């Protein structure tokens, strides 16, 4: 039995229910069950001693669990109380379910806006009845280019929206009450220019920045496992700290860092690795902020997590419970005392990597299981992948269906009635502790190497090895993927495949050219010179001056590509491996 001292009371929990006599009875029960199990195994021609089944992460599990498998400390946890294994809030979904946060973004800003308005009309709901818009920028923006760059051909408005300027923000948001909506700007390394455009736009609308709610991703640490060209690791950390410092002072409602475990699991990591590397990135960035003089109780409450929900139903639930427990303790160790600074606020993104192009309608079943698992794990917001994920950008129909999955679980299944309904399950508690222990081992390895930003290569190699193992198991049929290596049919399911209007690319190019031609050139040049100087000062260690300079440049109609070019020039920009 393990018992962890509570950082709140300082007292070790008492084995109240689990008296010695009780435990002996429980162990006797297991012995009796084991004998029966072994007999059955032999009937099936299986050697019970060597037969071990494993979770998708490779953790061995027993065929049945008993009361004595539950760590005593887990019996004394409560929803809304440190270390938050059972959920962040005492009320969980009692008065408000999780927020619907489907990812939206394709083509021109107006096209994305139509999809935003449509999903809002279909009941997409955030907290307190407000609407959350989870908006993804296109690949061209992620690369820090403008649509008229030669490399942008065929990629404008693909995988995200073609938004490159303050003017494009107006096309996207005009008419929406910016101070009553929540906007997630899904961007990669163009994080600062994207926020600068939004702030410049909000200012022109007369909306104070401290009333804006939403999210910047600050995903620089992703260069450890995503193949896109990137800033060097240290510069990435500093760019994140720049935004965090700015928002801490000027935008208290803004979420400043998104810890993207989803991307790790999509790249191939196991659930255990996802927990470990997400926490490792978070504490490394937190330390970077503390080193710049920021108070963890001020900035940590604005860190959020985006976590994958993939196929292994129970492991994916326990992963989230373990993540909450580990993060709370790590943040406590960093000096955070406010409960909000120890919270893992989770936006679930149901796995795209496990969805199949074959028999695509089967994906509706997969994503429903994923969403159900996330709800049982008690997450704060959700994006359910659409069934055509493996084929293209979602159609209106598939996007609506994915929203309905959330709504059906929220309104029909009854699972929102009780917080942490799985808490106390022998298996769930034991597996939560098992994942926690395995993740802490990896975390210790990262720490030994000097922290996340110093071991990108190690992280990449670990994740790639897992991806390879996964695929080898599929090829060897050790891992079943229905429609791919079992129950394969030649019959094609006829589904509509979305296509971005090719005219959108031409329009985006014309727009950015017109913007450059019509802007006040002298004003733009002066603003860009300021951005260069601010970047030099940033590089020399100054905090908080870069984003304001970018806002002024955006106001003078600088584009994402132009602002990113400055950062690339001063900070370095190269493939990650």
């Amino acid at each position, binding site marked *: 039995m393990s018992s962890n001292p509570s950082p709140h009371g300082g007292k070790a929990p008492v084995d109240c229910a689990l008296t010695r006599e009780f435990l002996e009875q429980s162990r006797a029960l297991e012995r009796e069950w084991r004998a029966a199990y072994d007999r059955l195994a032999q009937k099936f021609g299986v050697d019970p001693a060597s037969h071990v089944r494993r979770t998708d992460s490779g953790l061995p599990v027993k065929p049945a669990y008993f009361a004595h498998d539950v760590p005593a400390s887990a019996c004394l946890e409560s929803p809304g109380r440190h270390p938050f294994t059972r959920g962040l809030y005492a009320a969980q979904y009692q008065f408000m379910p999780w927020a619907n946060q489907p990812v939206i973004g394709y083509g021109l800003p107006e096209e994305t806006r139509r999809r935003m308005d449509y999903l809002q009309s279909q009941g997409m709901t955030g907290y307190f009845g407000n609407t959350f818009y989870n908006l993804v920028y296109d690949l061209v923006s992620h690369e820090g280019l403008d649509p008229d760059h030669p490399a942008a051909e065929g*990629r404008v408005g693909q995988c995200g929206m073609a938004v490159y300027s303050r003017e494009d923000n107006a096309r996207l948001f005009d008419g929406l009450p910016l101070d009553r909506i929540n906007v997630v700007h899904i961007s990669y390394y163009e994080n600062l220019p994207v926020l600068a455009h939004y702030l410049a736009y909000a200012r022109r609308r007369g909306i104070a920045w401290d009333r804006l709610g939403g999210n910047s991703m600050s995903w620089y640490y992703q260069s450890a496992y995503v193949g896109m060209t990137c800033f060097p690791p240290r510069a990435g950390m500093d760019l994140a700290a720049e935004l965090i410092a700015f928002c801490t002072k000027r935008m208290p409602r803004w979420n400043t860092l998104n810890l993207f475990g989803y991307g790790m699991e999509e790249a191939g990591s196991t659930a255990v690795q996802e927990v470990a590397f997400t926490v490792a990135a978070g504490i490394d960035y937190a330390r970077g902020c503390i080193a710049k003089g920021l108070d963890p109780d001020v900035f940590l409450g604005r860190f959020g997590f985006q976590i994958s929900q993939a196929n292994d139903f129970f492991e994916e639930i326990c992963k989230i419970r373990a993540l909450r427990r580990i993060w709370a303790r790590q943040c406590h160790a960093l000096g955070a005392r406010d409960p909000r600074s120890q919270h893992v606020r989770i936006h679930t993104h149901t796995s795209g990597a496990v969805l199949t192009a*074959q028999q695509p309608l089967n994906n509706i079943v997969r994503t429903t299981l994923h969403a159900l698992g996330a709800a049982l794990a008690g997450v704060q917001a959700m994006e359910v992948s659409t069934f055509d994920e493996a084929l293209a950008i979602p159609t209106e129909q598939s996007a609506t269906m994915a929203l309905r999955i959330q709504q059906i679980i929220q309104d029909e299944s009854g699972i929102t009635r009780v917080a942490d309904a799985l808490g106390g399950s022998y298996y769930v508690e034991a597996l939560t502790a098992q994942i926690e222990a395995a993740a802490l081992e990896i975390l210790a390895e990262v720490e030994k190497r000097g922290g996340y930003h110093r071991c990108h290569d190690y992280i990449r190699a670990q994740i790639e090895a897992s991806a390879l193992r996964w695929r080898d198991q599929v090829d060897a049929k050790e891992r079943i993927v229905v429609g791919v290596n079992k129950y394969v049919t030649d019959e094609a399911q006829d589904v509509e495949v979305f296509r971005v209007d090719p005219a959108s690319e031409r329009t985006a190019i014309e727009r950015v050219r017109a913007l450059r031609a019509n802007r006040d050139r002298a004003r733009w040049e002066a603003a860009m010179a300021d951005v260069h100087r601010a970047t030099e000062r940033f590089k020399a260690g100054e905090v908080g001056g870069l984003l304001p300079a970018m806002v002024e440049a955006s106001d003078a109609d600088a584009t994402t590509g132009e602002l990113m070019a400055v950062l690339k020039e001063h900070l370095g920009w190269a493939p990650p491996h």
Partner: protein
Amino acid sequence: MERRILRVLLCKGTMDAHDRGVRYLATKLREAGMEVIFINFLEPSEIVDAAIQEDVDVVGVSSSVEGHLPVARELTRRLAAQGRADVLVLFGGVIPERDFPAMRELGVEGVFGPGSTADSVIAFVRERARAVRPRFA
């Protein structure tokens, strides 16, 4: 019997990001005894430069998020212009079937969509690499 070890350049557009599949393929081709060079590219000219400098037999481009047609067009045009129309060009990833004929017309001999196995790529490469005649003009 192969005369010498096949050299394969595998590429992923830096903007494309979804590189899990192509990096898996790189491992499998290496395990199959091929020499694999992996690069990220911004523009197709970078693929051609690497293909010529590394003197490869095969170029494989992974594409998961559209943009494959312009890349294929530039790639084959530039390879031909540099006198390397003998290079076997493959594309893989999320490429809609409606684009397969256009890809083949551009000189892309193999298009491997979702569900393709590494073994099928290996077999294809072994059979088709090292053409005696130009594959595209």
